[in-house]
């Protein structure tokens, strides 16, 4: 292999200039989204079609074309997404659209409006980022890279200014770097929002030969896929952030701990570490500065609790991922009991931005207490779902209604769940709350890593609480009594309520157990576990009471408490529900009203979900 090692900062800069020059001639570039949902929706077939079309036409039209597969382009619900590096973006692209796209857009710069976004209200089409509300209301500081960079090509990253912050950092005193991070107000994106600068400084202050820098990529919150997308789409940004962090705190070894459920993220990050090492950006004597730093990739083992810092460290050591008391913090005694800085994927990806542009620039976005942007995975019952990035302080309503396009099927917006199992549900009445670390905590939820699940009137809040408690009971490591023995009991009480066996006093008993967990559990998983229960009791107590007193599920979700039937007036006899019914208990002739056989109905709700005419009623 040719030695590609860059021996100095100057060598990096001349290399960058060289690639940028060579890439100039390669335009136009077609960006085909390679994020998981787009892949599942057939984006590789689309990319393949582009490749073929380009090859067959290549000589004839004399434009050198290159298609790229990028990381997530965000608009997952409308994938596969294809964009062109300018303002044009096409949604739900199929291989058969490719010849037309090549002909019109690539060769002649024409916009094909019919492949753009169709506004559900105005029915107007738009194929421009600025014209599509989902994109227009975002601010892409972190996600910009995902949309333009081929995650498997380090050159792509370098051409767009990659590793410039590292080069700059080497000319700055480590203490000054920490000052910059502190001044920027960067707070950990993993959940708690701890100031990153404070963490780094404490770690640096400990007298020790060895320190570690870790990246938490064990994104386990159900409904969260920001870190996955960042690792899959722009791995070098994370790695660059980690190297800067290592330089600042004086660490020479790092680990990135990545969830086992994210095979692509593991693959991309491994390749990125190999490439960066081959270029002399990782390893011994980085860029000829004499500074050594390496990164190992550790695959998680499928345990949610390993997202907790002390459990994650045990897991890296090859042990059972059990948390331990953190009365002595991990900046002092972390991995192998040595000083350790642990930040999550998104936090690390913010670091190069701050170093490149300065803390003041960074503070221009976001709020006083929570500067910068936050990447969210918007999921659930919104019209538009996907990966989004907005300035901190954006309100919940803006996020749901503008970016998310409101609620699907014209239903009512009821609540959002933030922060995963450690967070809570915030009702629509508080939707004007700005999204930042402090406001969400005050409302009884938390920022968490950034999963936002939109809930509509057909969401039962008791069922949601039961869902999260079941999840946590399953994921409890079993070390401490409150979590291990308390969660199964909370789950049982919630199950009883949702199945029509609730009793007076159950709500109070739940609240008591919540206190035992909040105050008594060993780690954050246990002590924050009550949030989904307490927040739903706080804001939706009447729903609990309806289940307990009237044996009724107002949202029509809890199977034991509802019946499904088809409204004969609304039913068009399209037969879709009959086809999808797993019990095959829906009958009726085509174009005539259908009927559900109540004796065999398992109340799964598939008929209601597939009905395009809202003819399935729940009582």
């Amino acid at each position: 292999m040719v030695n590609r090692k860059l021996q100095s900062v100057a060598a990096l800069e001349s290399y960058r200039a060289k690639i940028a020059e060579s890439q100039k001639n390669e335009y136009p570039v077609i960006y085909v989204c390679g994020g998981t949902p787009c892949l599942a929706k057939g984006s590789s077939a689309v990319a393949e079609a582009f490749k073929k079309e380009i090859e067959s036409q290549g000589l004839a039209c004399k434009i050198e074309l290159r298609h790229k597969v990028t990381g997530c382009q965000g608009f997952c619900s409308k994938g596969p997404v294809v964009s062109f590096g300018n303002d044009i973006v096409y949604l739900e692209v199929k291989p058969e659209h490719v010849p037309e796209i090549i002909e019109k857009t690539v060769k002649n710069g024409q916009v094909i409006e019919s492949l753009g976004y169709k506004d559900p209200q105005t029915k107007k089409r738009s194929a421009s980022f600025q014209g599509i509300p989902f994109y227009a209301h975002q601010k892409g500081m972190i996600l910009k890279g995902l949309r333009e960079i081929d995650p498997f090509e380090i050159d792509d990253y370098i051409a767009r200014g990659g590793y410039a912050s590292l080069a700059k950092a080497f000319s700055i005193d480590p203490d000054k770097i920490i000052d910059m991070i502190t001044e920027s107000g960067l707070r950990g994106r993993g959940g708690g929002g701890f100031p990153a600068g404070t963490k780094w400084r404490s770690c640096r202050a400990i007298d020790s030969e060895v320190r570690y820098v870790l990246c938490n990529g064990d994104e386990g919150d159900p409904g969260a896929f920001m870190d996955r997308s960042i690792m899959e789409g722009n791995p070098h940004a994370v790695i660059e952030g980690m190297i800067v962090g290592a330089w600042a705190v004086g660490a020479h070894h790092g680990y990135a701990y990545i969830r086992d459920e994210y095979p692509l993220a593991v693959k991309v990050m491994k390749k990125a570490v190999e490439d960066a090492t081959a270029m002399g950006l990782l390893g011994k004597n980085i860029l000829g500065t004499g500074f050594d730093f390496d990164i190992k990739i550790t695959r998680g083992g499928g345990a949610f609790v390993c997202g907790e810092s002390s459990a994650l460290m045990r897991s890296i050591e090859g042990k059972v991922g059990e948390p331990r008391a953190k009365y002595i913090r991990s900046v002092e005694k972390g991995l192998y009991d040595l000083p350790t800085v642990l930040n999550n994927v998104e936090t690390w990806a913010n670091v190069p931005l701050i170093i490149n542009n300065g803390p003041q620039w960074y503070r221009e976005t976001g709020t006083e207490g929570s500067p910068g942007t936050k990447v969210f995975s918007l999921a659930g019952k919104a019209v538009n779902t996907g990966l989004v990035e907005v300035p901190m302080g954006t309100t919940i309503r803006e996020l749901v209604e503008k970016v998310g396009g409101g609620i699907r099927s014209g239903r009512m917006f009821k609540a959002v769940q933030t922060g995963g199992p450690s967070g809570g549900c915030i009702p629509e009445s508080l939707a004007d709350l700005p999204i930042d670390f402090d406001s969400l905590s005050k409302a009884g939820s938390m920022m968490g890593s950034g999963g936002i699940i939109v809930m509509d009137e057909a969401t039962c809040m008791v069922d949601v609480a039961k869902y999260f408690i079941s999840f946590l009971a399953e994921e409890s490591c079993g070390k401490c009594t409150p979590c291990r023995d308390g969660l199964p009991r909370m789950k049982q009480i919630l199950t009883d309520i949702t199945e029509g066996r609730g009793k007076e006093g159950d709500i109070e008993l739940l609240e008591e157990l919540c206190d035992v967990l909040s105050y008594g559990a060993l780690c954050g998983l246990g002590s924050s576990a009550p949030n989904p229960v307490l927040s739903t009791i706080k804001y939706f107590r009447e729903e609990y009471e309806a289940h307990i007193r009237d044996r009724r599920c107002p949202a029509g979700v809890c199977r034991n408490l509802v019946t499904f039937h088809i409204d004969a007036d609304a039913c068009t006899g399209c037969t879709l529900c009959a086809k999808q019914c797993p019990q095959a208990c829906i009958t009726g002739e085509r174009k005539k009203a259908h009927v559900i056989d109540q004796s065999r109905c398992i109340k799964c709700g598939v008929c209601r979900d597939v009905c395009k005419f809202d003819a399935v009623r729940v009582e």
Partner: protein
Amino acid sequence: MEKITIKINGKDIEAVKDQSVLEVARENGFAIPALCFHPEIETRAGSCRVCLVEVSQNGRTRLVTSCNYPVRKGLEVRTDTDLVRRIRKGVVELLLSRTPDSPVIQKLARENGIEKSRFFVDEGEHYRNRCIACSLCTQVCEEVVGVSAISMLDRGRDKAPGTPYLKPSQVCIGCGACAYACPTDAISMIDEGEVRKIWGREFKMVTCSVCGKPYIPEAQVDWIVKTTGKDRSFFDKCPDHR
């Protein structure tokens, strides 16, 4: 050893920096109940959560497990506040619903004013007899004995100590330290004649040449001879007749 002064329930107490709150408190006559604490075990897992106390330091007040909370200058400890009592009671009630047949837990429950648990009781595949999964047995085996014959298996509700592959352990020396350390007498160790049964394995015992009492497993003698170089003949007699 840096001497410092802390406050426990309003009283000034002298202590050594980084000692545990529990030890300092007990040495000074303050009672704090605890199950998974053992003075010989360095790993203070803090898993049973019975020894919770309220501490204030640097303007922050919270509940912590006293067995592994290090005392530092200016620490204020309260062992018997309403919050401590209430949360401890909740923890004990959970333990009672887990191990209703444990006399130790029953007694602790009574002391905390619990007659009967309001929650469902573990049974069927979840019945763990008297085990509260505190992991003290596995720590003794690893840290004190040094053989690591058992470990905590599974997770969540299913967490329990056990041998590899749930088969008789090849490295167990039958010393019974795990059973002696267990706070709830949950580990079955049966000595019958010259045989000790523990963790599904039988161990032949060495008999005292004076009193004729079987007193130590042969495997344990082998282990001690191997690790300390002690003379095997030392074990001909039991401690009472040496």
